């Protein structure tokens, strides 16, 4: 298995457990949706995978590299995990090109330019290279956020409610596009949503989360 999550426990306060004994795995290139209502712990799960929070117990292994267990905890900036935030969090003071190039620190200037262009071509937005986030529509912002997360070639991509800021018409089109991009790049991805249709359209498998427990899994045939 490419991603192994085992017995993950987490609580913000000692009294209340947000996640309880969470275990599941992903194949390389698989897209898994975590489906649950608000407060079920799904966004917290992404924060643990990304390293923004430290689990109380359990382990996370990606591509044979232990990101955390009882002895190890790799900081978020060293995990090579890509994440698309619910509100995209595009840096408002940087244009599209600089936003996408932000995570490409170790490359030469020409390699950076090349990679940014590759990403813009992937999302079909080369003409928006110099635009600022506030000049883009919601759908365009989401695609830039995706390109920014994919640019440093992360080992795994996490998406937090990627459609919550889009209106219904746009959502249907973007869902298809998003799955297309994720499959083209063969990116192992986990996204959380509260919308069954989102999960069904994009994921290969759905993991149902309720009150911090996994209650059911469903494989989707596309």
């Amino acid at each position, binding site marked *: 298995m490419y991603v192994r999550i085992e017995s993950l426990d987490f609580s913000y306060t000692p009294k209340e457990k947000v996640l309880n004994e969470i275990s599941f795995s992903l194949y390389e290139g698989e897209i898994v949706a975590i489906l649950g209502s608000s407060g079920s712990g799904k966004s917290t799960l992404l924060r643990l995978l990304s390293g923004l929070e430290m689990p109380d117990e359990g382990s996370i292994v990606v591509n044979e590299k232990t990101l955390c267990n009882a002895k190890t905890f790799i900081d978020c900036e*060293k995990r090579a995990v890509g994440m698309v935030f619910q509100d995209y969090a595009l*840096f408002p*003071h940087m244009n599209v090109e600089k936003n996408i190039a932000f995570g490409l620190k170790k490359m030469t200037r020409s390699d950076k330019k090349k990679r940014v262009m590759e990403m813009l071509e992937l999302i079909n937005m080369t003409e928006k290279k110099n635009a600022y986030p506030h000049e883009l529509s919601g759908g365009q912002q989401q695609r830039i956020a995706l390109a920014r997360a994919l640019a440093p070639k992360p080992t795994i991509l996490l998406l937090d409610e990627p459609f919550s800021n889009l209106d219904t018409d746009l959502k249907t089109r973007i869902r298809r596009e998003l799955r297309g991009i994720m499959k083209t790049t063969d990116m192992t991805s986990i996204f959380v949503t509260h919308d069954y249709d989102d999960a069904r359209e994009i994921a290969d498998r759905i993991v149902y989360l309720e009150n911090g427990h996994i209650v059911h899994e469903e494989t989707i045939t596309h």
Partner: protein
Amino acid sequence: MFKRLRRNTNLFSVTSILAGLLIIIPMLNILTEVMTPASDAWLHIRRVLLQRYIVNTLVLIGLVAVFSALVGLFAAYIVTRYEFKGRKLLSWFLILPLAVPSYIAAYVYADMLSYTGTFSRFLRAGNIGLTIDIMNMSGAVFIFVMTLFPYVYMLTRSALQKQNAAFLENARLLGASRAEAFYSVVLPLLRPALVAGTLLVVLETLNDYGVVAYFNVRVFSFAIFDAWFRLGDTVAAIRLSAILMIIVFAIIFIERLIRGKRRFSGNAKPKPVPRMPLSGPWRFILPGLLWVIMALGFFIPLAQLLYYASLTFTDVFNTGFVFLVINSLTLAITATLITVFVALMLANYNRGRKSSFKHALLKITNLGYAIPGAVIAVAVMLFFIDLDHMFYPLYRLINPESARLILTASLAMLTFAYVLRFMAIGYNSVEAAYDKVGEKFTEAAYSLKTSKLKTLLKVDLPLIKTGLISAAIIVFIDVIKELPLTLILRPTNYDTLASSVFRYAREEMLQESSVPALVMILISSLLIFFLTHQKKGVTANVR
């Protein structure tokens, strides 16, 4: 067109347009006066002194800007991003140095560090023969930074509290270390607040006359006073004022130009960055540094003033002093009420449909805060002299023995100047309160056929009450501390707390100046406490 004009003519528009006219006319007056032939004094100033004034002014505001930005940002970052003992107390304490007018801090420090001062005597008692000369450019920088940094602190603290944690988290997930994320994301996003706060500090520094006069730092406000009062040359004073106005507008223009089309806030719902506990020696070092800043900007001047007051209280506190306090309070309350009323009219006029006329009118009415007091004083004085000339036939009609200058010799001129200078402060607070409420309640009232005035009284005012009180408090504190306008425009033999402190200090009676200074600091501190602790009221819950 007539129909539209009639529809748009109401209390709000008439007051706003009148306010705009009353503010722009004196300013234009200055520009037209610049065209009058140059005087000998001006030729001398231009040939010998002007370059020095420009260089000194730029050096002073440059250094004050950099250090205030550093101190303000440091303080704001520590209290918003870290958890430590005393954090809550410090977070409002750090605003208190604003209650100490810069000129009072200057008098106190100059005296404390003089050969016979408390600090030097203390050092000599320990056999340390060190004396620090503060009465120079570096001293002025120190005084301005320590008393004005709270402007940067307040604005950056508020921006840091609203900054979305997702930006920082995203930067870290994309491989940036904490330091890299700070420099590449946190700091650039703070830019508008940092620049706005620093700009306020710069404008206050340019406005000052008390510190630079006492420390003999020859900058523009010093030069304007010098030309007007020592050389008795209004033409030179006007030309210096015009150059100073150009410098101020150039600074504001350059900032806008650099900002370009970038934005500094996203559309994301803000999720605050959680505070981290301080560990190891940092638990003591970082809060310790904040307490040092507090001591330098507030506690040390306060302690020294209390000591002076204990020596001179019985001499200074008499009926005359009570009248001084009454003068200051009446003047400040009158100016505050007028400012807040006009600001309220302007804010109401600016609601609803936007237009370039409204935009221009707002820019004009908010001009005052950007223009240093000495310049406003010159402009207002000339304007009132013109008014008196215009109204002289009327004065004669009422009283054939009437003096030529009635308005110019009255408190009306000073009050007008205060309103002109502090309108921007009042307006911004009222507008912020209206922004929080939105327009839906007002529109609902209009749809129920309620008149504009009744809607204002019954719907808007109760909703923005907290904002109005804040506006009034901020304007009041500024008016009571104000010095350059008061010195130039107050009627003969009329003193306020601020002008009496200046008078005592000029006569080297620093100990006597402590009592009025303390009253000013006490009033301002109490109001700052009230401002930072007032309940959010209705406005917090309307969205």
